[in-house]
């Protein structure tokens, strides 16, 4: 298996805050990799650097061998990023939004339509895609955005808390889609989450991070045996030291 993402000694300083403090991890091709950590642990910062949005203060990230700083535009053509807090253009309809996003990847009109069809299935929004985004609920918007991120079959999907704001039913739906879709299309996923259940269900491997550093990495099963815990929540408490 080849390496999809390789992060080495990432440091990111915002003024007086050291958001990342020597973070390293690597993701195999076709893997779903989860970052878990408390609020402010640095998850979003790590994902943003991987997505070429922020520049690392020091350290490197390579996506399929491309450096996110030096070869940012090549990296952008390989990835698809779902921000933690994201919106869609509220004066466009769901369909128009998907078409707009699809047209950056698709070669022609037919290809655009194909992508939009895929997205329409992932989102499960059906007829509502014809309505303006303005009138969508938070969950509907999130489903639209998840669909947008996955429709293009990127080589790497970077999903920051993909199910935030979704109810139980739709969380299950979206998780199912990510898992099935990813395995079928051979997409690699880097995601972050607070939901240990979700991470346990979705991820092949997880990294526990705290204060910008990795505390432990491994598959959920490995971590549970290593820390003699019944679930990831306990592992987390054990590692971070609040249990």
């Amino acid at each position, binding site marked *: 298996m080849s390496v999809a993402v390789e992060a080495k000694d990432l440091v990111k300083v*915002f003024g007086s805050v050291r958001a990342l403090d020597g973070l390293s991890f690597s993701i195999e091709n076709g893997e779903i990799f989860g970052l878990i950590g408390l609020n402010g642990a640095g998850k979003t910062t790590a994902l*943003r650097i991987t*997505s*070429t*949005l*922020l*520049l690392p203060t020091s350290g490197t990230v390579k996506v399929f061998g491309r450096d996110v700083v030096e070869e940012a*535009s090549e990296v*952008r*053509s390989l*990835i*698809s*990023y*779902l*921000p933690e*807090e*994201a*919106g*869609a*253009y*509220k*004066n*466009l309809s769901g369909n*128009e939004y998907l078409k*707009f*996003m699809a*047209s*950056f*990847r698709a070669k022609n009109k037919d290809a655009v339509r194909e992508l939009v069809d895929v997205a329409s299935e992932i989102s499960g929004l059906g007829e509502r895609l014809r309505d303006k985004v303005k009138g969508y609920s938070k969950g509907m918007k999130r489903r639209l*955005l998840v669909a*947008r991120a996955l429709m293009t079959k990127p080589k790497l999907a970077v999903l920051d808390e993909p199910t935030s704001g979704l109810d139980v039913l739709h969380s299950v739906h979206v998780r199912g889609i990510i898992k099935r879709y990813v395995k079928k299309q051979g997409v690699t996923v880097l995601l972050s989450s607070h939901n240990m259940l979700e991470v346990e269900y979705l991820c092949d491997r997880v990294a526990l991070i705290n204060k910008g550093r990795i505390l432990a990495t491994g598959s959920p099963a490995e971590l549970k045996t290593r820390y003699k815990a019944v679930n990831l929540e306990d592992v987390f408490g054990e590692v971070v030291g609040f249990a």
Partner: protein
Amino acid sequence: MLKGLFNIVVKEVKELVRDPKILLPMIIIPLIMFPLMGFAIQTSMEAAEEGIGKISIAVMDLDGGPVAENLRINLTNWNVKIVEIDDPDLTEAFSYVQESNLTGLIVIPSGFSQNITEGKTSELEVYAPFRGGGITESTSSSAVSSLVSLFENNLIDQRINERFPESNSTTVLNPIALSEKSIINGKGVDVNPEVLFGLVISQSTIIPVGIMMLLIFAMQLAATAVASEKEEKTLETLLTLPINRFMILAGKLTGSIIVAVVGAIAYLIGFSYYTSSFTGAIPTDAGVDLAAIGLAPTFLSYLLMGLSLFMALLSALALAISLSVFAEDVRGAQALVGPLSILFVFPMIFTIFTDISALPFPLSVILLAIPFTHPMLAARVSFTGDYLTAIGGILYMTVFTVIVLYIAARLFGTEKILTAKLKFRRFSLRRKK
């Protein structure tokens, strides 16, 4: 690459045009308000004209002499309807005039004819009823006094003819026959300079005001285009798309330009309708053929004006976009861009009221350093023939735009666009602890 640019432009235009905050001022004001204003002015002017057509004046003749009789004959000849008032009770006459909607009341005192015939000055009272109406009402009330002055002129002619029977009253009153002409570009032209000034002033006020409005409008659009991406949290997604960041910037600029130009055209249509609705009542151009006296805009001057305006638009948008990078939401962006209006208002006022070269040196340098002065100067090029100033202005604005665009591209190209913000935290009212 161009396809990506096209995508962004289409999306920008859709977003801007569907935004009621932008659509309303762009469509409602120019296309509905202006014609409505024009209609209102037109109808009231027509009403006023009709009113002048049928002036009726009450006359209380306490004199009964020949000159009073003469005045009445003159008024009738001028198409005035005369209502004789025989009762010398003024109070009653007043309420009668007011109630029956007469234009005014002339009271001819006794001894009027005698005084005039003896060559003295005689009093004559003119009353105009006050109805609290608009401007047109005041013109109708002054109509009575104008008629009386006309009559007075007749009396003057009469007196001159009596004293100097051998001379003509017009020559006595006008020893000099003044004929005013102009020199344009070294050529004598048989046109009154007042008329020319009027023309130039109307051109050099309307154009700078129009340019200023277009630029302010475009800047607000461009600022909104970036800031709304932040406010709606769509910017991060946009920045991770496989498209050159400069294309995103260019797409936003183009979208704003398109919408601003459409808005400007709507304003022009509305405004020309507005002005045309009452130009019928005001003499225009006084029959001056601009082409014949060499003042009609040539193709070159049109070209320079257009180029100059386009560069000003581009530099205004680049400036607005660079600034809006520092705002967190639309309101913040508009607050940042708002103060830039001074850069339009300042040159506008000076170009309307003075010639820049006549200003003190430091002031004119400051004005010329503001890029938006140049389109206003270029708008005068057909009058001044000063093509060099216009070309210099275009070059200056090009350099300015390239620098600002470079800065904007730098801001867009790095993480600055996500992390840069002006901190107003000190002013926050919701500070905890």
